[in-house]
């Protein structure tokens, strides 16, 4: 099996182009790739659409800044599709002022929209959001006496993910709860770049335990400063 190219985080960040839909793994920063995001902040690429569970922590008074929050401060996103921005006051400000177009999506629906895109489905019916503002502008389909919203797939140009271990072919493991949206985003983007805390030889990972198959991954970035164990 062929090896994937290993890039520096700066080189990886350069692959993100202005205007791209960028999917970033992580849940309140847990599972976001800190070094790639830091390089992307430095690169300053803007007019991006963010797809991420949330906008990270931005509570400067508590010293809590993580995930995509620095890029939000840097105004690199013109649009965000996310489930929750409650821990990032700057994102809330940008939303309320209209500076950034923020679309709030139920978390299960966001996960399923991304999976749908990766799996070649044209959409799915979910009961979530029926009778709420989420229903607005959507088709409601009734089946077996229950109402569902028809939700469509969500694709991305680039996925930026964080793995605990990758083999050189690109097979991935994720650390504990850092898995969250990572495996889904890996399937739904044209270009998948993964910051891995550890990179091992092909054949070292248990083929029954691999979470993301190598075929979804385009580039690896070796973590320089691992924060976890």
């Amino acid at each position, binding site marked *: 099996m062929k090896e994937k190219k290993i890039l520096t985080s700066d080189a990886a960040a350069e692959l993100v182009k202005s205007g791209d839909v960028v999917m970033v793994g992580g849940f309140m*920063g*847990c*599972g976001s790739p800190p070094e790639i995001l830091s390089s992307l902040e430095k690169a300053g690429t803007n007019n991006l659409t963010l797809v991420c569970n949330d906008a990270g*922590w931005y509570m400067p008074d508590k010293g809590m800044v993580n995930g995509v929050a620095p890029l939000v401060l840097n105004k690199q996103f013109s649009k965000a599709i996310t*489930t*929750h921005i409650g821990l990032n006051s700057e994102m809330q400000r940008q939303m309320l002022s209209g500076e950034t177009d923020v679309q709030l999506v*139920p*978390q299960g629906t966001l996960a399923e929209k991304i999976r749908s895109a990766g799996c070649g489905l044209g959409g799915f019916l979910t009961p979530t959001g029926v009778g709420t503002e989420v229903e607005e502008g959507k088709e409601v389909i009734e089946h077996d006496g229950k109402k569902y919203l028809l939700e469509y797939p969500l694709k991305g140009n680039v996925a930026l993910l964080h793995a605990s271990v990758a083999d050189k072919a690109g097979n991935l493991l994720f650390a504990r*709860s850092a898995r969250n949206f990572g495996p889904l985003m890996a399937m739904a983007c044209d270009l998948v770049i993964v910051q891995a805390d550890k990179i091992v030889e092909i054949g070292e990972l248990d083929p029954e335990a691999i*979470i993301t198959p190598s075929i979804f991954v385009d580039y690896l970035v070796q973590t320089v400063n691992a924060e976890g164990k």
Partner: protein
Amino acid sequence: MEYKPNKNVIAKRIAGLLTDGSVVNLGIGLPTLVGNYVPEGVDIILQSENGFIGLGPVPEKDSIDPFLVNAGGSPVTMIDGGCFFDSSMSFGIIRGGHVDYTVLGVLEVDQDGNLANYKIPGKMVPGMGGAMDLTVGSKKVIAATVHFDKKGNSKLMKKCTLPLTAQKEVDILVTDVGYFEIKDGAFILKETFAPYTADFVKENTEANLIVAEDFKQVEIV
């Protein structure tokens, strides 16, 4: 009768509702307290919507794992027998009815079981996170709130005014005054917590209220 907010009473009563072996999702804030009061002999499995079951207690400071957090982003632990999964599996579990109880905080709840807890237009826009899926998908939805808002208005409403999290999905409401089932367009008062009485609830409720046949006043210790 004087009212004094008491979140622990709410958490204690809800903990007593959870059945042995059930799968439970506790929302951030007040609902999280429920975990502290689960009776001995009742073994529940906590689901964390960011991707695991088997949520355990808060870790000691020196054993924090930065990659193991709850849905509020705070460090937690995992008990033996727990396991991790991705967000599509996590919400498959939730939407698929595999969570027995979800306990949620409340901005508003009404006699039809409507719930509003994610948005105050123009003011607070955190987003719904997993709350919509949890409310729609869980077998039993338990709303948890202090009985009166800061202006002294009862939280038992005729009709929610804020954007809904979900329509007609709340099954049970537990406040620091009483335990209510929500059914057929009414709050059914099952218990008050001493010293509060059924009369106290009646006097302070504008929404449809029915005192259950098996109503009782109980002491929450």
